[in-house]
């Protein structure tokens, strides 16, 4: 099976200006990944790990400084022209973290859902109406009529996130890039959104790149998990395996730190904080915090293949 999306060695550097000095923030360093049809890939990491940047580069909200993005076998240009853009957006959609801010608060649901259709050239009123009802059913908001005339603030968080998903599937995309879609939701409804994603994958054969810091959610819905740290991919593998048997010391730390009511946790000592992205450490970015650190860590290790998993750590050097 070929991949519907390939990301090769993508690098993203932000320059920020402070007074006269400009700083280069290495938000993303050499990210490579693939996505198959109807696959759910979770990208897990702490804030500053580059996971959202990765998503936005793929979603063409940022353009990469280096690397290549291949969608359905053809390279996506850095700057899209109008036609390319519409073509691209139709196939790749993004769902944002905060349903409270990802929809224009002064527009009704109907308008919010209609816009993509109109941008992509649909003019027929009946057709649009039918389409709207269809997608609202798909995201389990029914009866559709009730919701169409509502403003976002009249909906609950979960409902809003459903509308956001409705907006993203209305153009029948093949890929949805979901940026922490559940992190702002109440615990009691989190799982419903996860379930919705599973359902959309099932019914519409949509592939997801799901960015999250919540390992439990990632484990729940994804086929594969990528762990990112300081702008780099540290580990990649099947979801269950990553959670059960993390290889990279960072992944291990992350898992240990993750709250688990049933886990009799071993104690972590104070392990410092993620590195600055302006002047990241030489070699493995995790080495200043790593208890297995050796002299070899001064050089950046490649992603090693370890039993179907990939891991960026010298411990697994063969």
């Amino acid at each position, binding site marked *: 099976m070929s991949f519907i999306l390939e990301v090769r060695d993508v690098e993203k550097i932000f320059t920020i200006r402070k007074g006269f000095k400009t700083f280069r923030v290495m938000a993303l360093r050499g990210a490579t990944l693939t996505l198959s049809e109807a696959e759910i890939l979770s990208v897990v990491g702490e804030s500053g790990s580059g996971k959202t940047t990765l998503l936005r580069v793929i979603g063409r*909200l940022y353009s990469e400084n280096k690397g290549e993005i291949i969608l359905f076998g053809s390279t996506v240009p850095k700057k899209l022209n109008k036609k390319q853009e519409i073509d691209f957006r139709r196939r790749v959609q993004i769902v944002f973290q905060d349903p409270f801010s990802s929809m224009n608060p002064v527009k009704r649901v109907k308008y919010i859902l209609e816009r993509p259709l109109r941008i992509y050239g649909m003019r027929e009123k009946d057709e649009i109406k039918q389409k709207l009802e269809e997608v609202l059913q798909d995201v389990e908001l029914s009866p559709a009529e009730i919701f169409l005339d509502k403003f976002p603030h009249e909906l609950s968080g979960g409902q809003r996130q459903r509308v956001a998903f409705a907006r993203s599937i209305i153009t029948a995309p093949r890929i949805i890039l979901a940026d922490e879609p559940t992190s702002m939701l109440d615990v009691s409804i989190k799982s419903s959104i996860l379930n919705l994603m599973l359902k959309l994958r099932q019914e519409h054969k949509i592939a997801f790149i799901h960015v999250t810091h919540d390992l439990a959610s990632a484990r729940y819905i994804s086929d594969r998990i990528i762990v990112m740290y300081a702008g780099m991919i540290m580990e990649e593998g099947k979801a269950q395996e990553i959670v059960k048997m993390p290889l990279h010391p960072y992944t291990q730390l992350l898992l240990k730190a993750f709250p688990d009511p049933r886990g009799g946790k071993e104690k972590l000592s104070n392990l410092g904080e993620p590195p600055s992205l302006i002047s990241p450490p030489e070699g493995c970015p995790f080495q200043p915090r790593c208890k297995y650190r050796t002299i070899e860590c001064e050089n950046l290790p490649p992603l090693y293949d370890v039993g179907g998993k990939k891991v960026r750590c010298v411990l697994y050097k063969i």
Partner: protein
Amino acid sequence: MRKLYVAIAILGIHLIIAAFADLIAPYDPSEIVNLPYQPPSKEHLLGTDRLGRDILSQLLHGSRLSIFIGVSVGALMTLLSTTIGMLSGYYGGVVDRILSTLTDVFLVIPGLPLMIVISAYIRVRGPLVVILVIALTSWGGGTRIIRSQVMSLRNRDFVMALKSIGESNFRIMFFEMLPNMFSLIVANFFSAVLYGILGEASLSFLGLSDVSKITWGTMLYWAQSANALLNGMWYWVLAPGVAIASLGTAFALLNFYVDELTNPRLRRS
């Protein structure tokens, strides 16, 4: 809430007077109807001016141009500051650096002296010039507020979301973001109107507008040039001032009210 009612009531009275000045005013404001410098009497509740024109009628008619100039200044300033603030805040980068430096420059160069200097050189005098001079020298403050609001809106997910569905920048700015800033713009407008009213009064008082047109500002100019206060004609100075202050207060209240609505941190429970 009471602020709103008070403001609307004051504004309403002014608007009614302005609309029906012809009917309410006892005389034609530019007609010489009596001897000059008549003290208040039954015929002339506020006396007559140096030419023998009825001051009350002038006061009532004056509201027209005063309000018109104030509102026009407000509209023009709001238009300028919204457009510039929007472009500057939305595009960021070089566009922003140029526009916001320009804004800052206009913000720190003192407005009234600049207005006076410009008015001193402009040979044509009239309401339009007054409106342009005030608005063009004073759009900086509003622009800054709009810009910072746009910058915070720009980072909101919904703008990202709109970009992600391929919405054009123009549409994002003026169809999507603008309605979100509606109350801010309205607040801005109200304070700009207040500024316009006071600005017009100041320029007119200095004789830098067309003083043959009747506004409250030019009334004060005439009163001053006729030595009204030293001659005991305090009512001639008091009346237009009260009119300006009350209209100004209405707009200041509206501004404050909308400000409170917009800025949840100011909201009274």
